[in-house]
């Protein structure tokens, strides 16, 4: 529907972040309706009074209540955030991930290197590169830019990470079991100059056997 | 001035605490510097208020809850009316900065304008 992105959550982390979003959304709608309701109430009630209303200047207990309750609410949201963040930001030791992908951003396309198999997928102004990933695998991404700041965003990951010149950034995901192709959905999400708009790539999640074929088809040595 | 002193001191204290927390969670040098400098500047103003204004005597009418207009009659201050200095000085300052990309001739010209306007302002003050 209106809040459903084109790609379903493609990683376990994405699913967690999606679930967290639903919690926040419900909370936001509830508070929004409460405030809207209060405004409607005061507007409707305010029309029928006459003379000078009670000139009340403060009511400490109520004021403390509407300080404390929001404080508890954001405290709870913060706690939930940290729980999810723990999984999203986690990175395991180098040798326990299934796949490493090196992402290089340049003005104005992407290069994906699969060091274990030697595949290099480079985008051009005419042709988008494809980022293929094996379902069910733990993948670490290592990102760097050769010029300005870019940002690697796959909406299906519910996640993006900036690419900096001179300093690598990393993140790790556990790909889910949903396979499919989402062409033209990977985008650059940090304004990087003239053709920032067209710095896009294709995303595909393939069953492990298909992923092998994909690598071999691009001149690689197959998955390790 | 007491209330103002507390505002500034409170601000300074807040930044000291914030800076220590940020340091404790592994904050980066730029942020730490900015926060501690904020504390220092707040402390500077609070210190001036408390130090320099300590000997001021009776509270000012503006700080007294029971004061009223008749308590403060007389000359409140000097408020210069029309003056060309601001426009001229602003133009000079603009030229100084704009000359950095445009050319040093503009910066030099701007400095000349700024210097002359400052001199005129000082002369105005002496009147």
């Amino acid at each position, binding site marked *: 529907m209106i809040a459903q992105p084109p790609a379903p959550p493609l990683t376990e982390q994405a699913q967690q972040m999606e679930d967290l979003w639903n919690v*926040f959304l419900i909370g936001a709608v509830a508070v929004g309706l409460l405030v809207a309701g209060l405004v409607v109430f005061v*507007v409707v009630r305010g029309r029928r009074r006459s003379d000078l209303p*009670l000139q009340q200047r403060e009511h400490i207990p109520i004021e403390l209540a509407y300080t404390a309750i929001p*404080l508890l609410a954001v405290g709870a949201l913060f706690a939930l955030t940290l729980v999810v963040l723990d999984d999203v930001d986690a990175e395991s030791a180098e040798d326990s991930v299934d796949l490493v992908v090196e992402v290089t951003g340049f003005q104005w396309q992407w290069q994906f290197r699969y060091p274990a198999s030697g595949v290099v997928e480079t985008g051009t102004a005419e042709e988008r590169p494809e980022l293929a990933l094996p379902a069910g695998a733990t993948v670490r991404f290592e990102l760097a830019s050769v010029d300005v700041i870019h940002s690697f965003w796959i909406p299906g990951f519910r996640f993006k990470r900036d690419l900096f010149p001179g300093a690598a950034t990393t993140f790790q995901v556990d790909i889910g079991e949903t396979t499919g192709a989402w062409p*033209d959905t990977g985008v650059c999400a940090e304004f990087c100059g003239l053709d920032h708009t067209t710095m896009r790539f294709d995303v595909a999640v393939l069953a492990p056997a298909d992923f092998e074929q994909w690598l071999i088809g691009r001149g690689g040595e197959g998955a390790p | 001035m007491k209330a103002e002193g507390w*505002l500034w001191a409170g601000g300074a204290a807040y930044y000291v605490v914030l800076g220590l927390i940020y340091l404790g969670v592994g904050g980066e040098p*730029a942020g730490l510097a900015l926060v501690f400098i904020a504390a220092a500047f707040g402390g500077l103003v609070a210190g001036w208020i408390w130090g320099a204004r300590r000997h001021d005597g009776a509270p000012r009418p503006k700080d007294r809850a029971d004061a009223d207009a008749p308590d403060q009659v007389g000359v409140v201050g000097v408020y210069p009316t029309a003056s060309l200095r601001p*426009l001229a000085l602003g133009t000079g300052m603009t030229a100084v900065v704009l000359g950095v990309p445009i050319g040093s001739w503009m910066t030099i010209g701007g400095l000349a304008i700024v210097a002359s306007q400052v001199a005129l302002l000082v002369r105005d003050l002496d009147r």
Partner: protein
Amino acid sequence: MTTVAPDPRLVTVDEVLAARPHHPGGLPATLVGWLTTTDHKAIGVAYAVTSMLFLAVGGLLAGLIRVELARPGLQLVDEATYNSLFTIHGSVMVFLFAVPFGFALANYLVPLQIGAPDLAFPRLNALSYWLYLLGGLVMLGGFLTDGGAAGFGWFAYPPLSGPQGSPGLGADLWIVAILLTGTSGTLGAVNVVATVSTMRAPGMTLFRMPILTWNLLLTSFMILLVFPVLSGAMIMLEADRQFGTHFFDPTAGGSPILFQHLFWFFGHPEVYIIALPFFGVVSEIFPVFARRPIFGYRGLVLATLAITALSTSVWAHHMFVTDQVVLPFFAATSFLIAVPTGVKVFNWVATMWTGRLRFEVPMLFGLGFLVTFVGGGLTGVMLASPSLDFHLSDTYFVVAHFHYVMGGTVVFALFAAIYFWWPKVTGRMLSRTLGTIHFGLLFVGFQMTFFVMHALGRDGMPRRVADYAEVDGFAGMNMIATVGSGVLFVSMVPFGMAIVTSLRQAPTNDADPWAANSLEWAASSPPAHHNFDWLPPIRSERPVFDVRWINHDDIAAPGVAAAWNARRNKDPHWSPIPGNGAAGGDGDGDGDGGGRR
């Protein structure tokens, strides 16, 4: 002395002022007058008019953006031009419209609200205005250069904004403009703090100042803290561009992320610098049109202090996706800032709670602010969570969020301020019919334009793109947003008509047409030269309300009646109250004070 029956009459400021000699005030009448004025009222009007002109420029740029984005494909402009369009749109709106309008309010109203004849440093004040205007013109001058205006986004991140990333002169002009407007703001803040600290009227303690003045004071604290940081970052950037330094050049030991820390240490407080004056505006308007005092004055001051402090503690929430900041710290402070903001919202609702509401145009816009701003605040809480921000950062969801919070404040509350204080500035009213139409169109247009952007961002549309693909499915929502922006443009027509027709009327010069509360309504409309030669006693944050209810001891602030009596005893010149009120008056106008005896 005989006992006099209590007089239930309400006293108007106009009656009091009518009994006094009138010193007409007014804005400069000649060009030279405007070029040399140091009067805070003239400068306030100059800031307001100039910022509204820049609003038109920023709005035009937004219109071009919306026309381009309505359908997939590049129809209107090429990418390079588009990049300048959104860069200058954002820069104009933030630096040349929103903050300067706040200074318009501060300039015009702070002296009037605290009973001062002008700001503390009138010539410095004028200098601030000229630096603003000149800086704005320099920024727009970028469009006249070969390479076009700056096109690196209003944050100007290096290396994109560095010498290799953006080699054109337009970029340097933008940086120069930021330095000039930043200096303008810093000097203005100095003026406001000095004025509020040293020029309040007798009896106007800090805790009797109107909330608007409090907010302008705390806005100035923030400006003093963060504008110089921006200026420093800009000087470093310009040095990289012109003098061969490498502050932000990673190939030579520099650090792009350093720029981001410096920029956002300024950039986040900047949005509160923009918002706080408008929180103050509605804190003046709700009490007047609900006929109740502002609810929880001390709580509001504390909340504003908390917002001021916290807003300078959250900056790296704009950098969550860089993988280089302490996520829990900034998430915590960002969540926390929602609490005092919520307190303010509840205080405003409570002000109206058992109020008798008058739905004049300022009140309509105040209600529009409340609803819109809360919407933006709720999405802000979502963005405070890095776990959600990883998906939402740098997308149209953020664009929606900040337009909602900025829209609530700098659009709705701004028009509330204009309709509310117009009679004080000009001595005339703005048409209620036209104002109501203006409000209706603005509200509808605003929601239509920006609500869909939440979904666009969630669905995958990043910021600052000139185009999107058919496959994205973004076209429908983009078209809705574009049509909405058309309604926004149309909404300015009744506003323009209201301004023109009002200025063509003869002035009525009512000092207090709204039956309002704070001290500016005790000055004539427009205020006389140097504002006041007579002040009511100040025993609460509502001195004019206290004058109006002077004959009702249970309603006016405690101590007001005693102050009047003390005036009669000390100097009858200060106590001309018509009628025979218990507090004494000068009903027969012979200057001798006292009731009928």
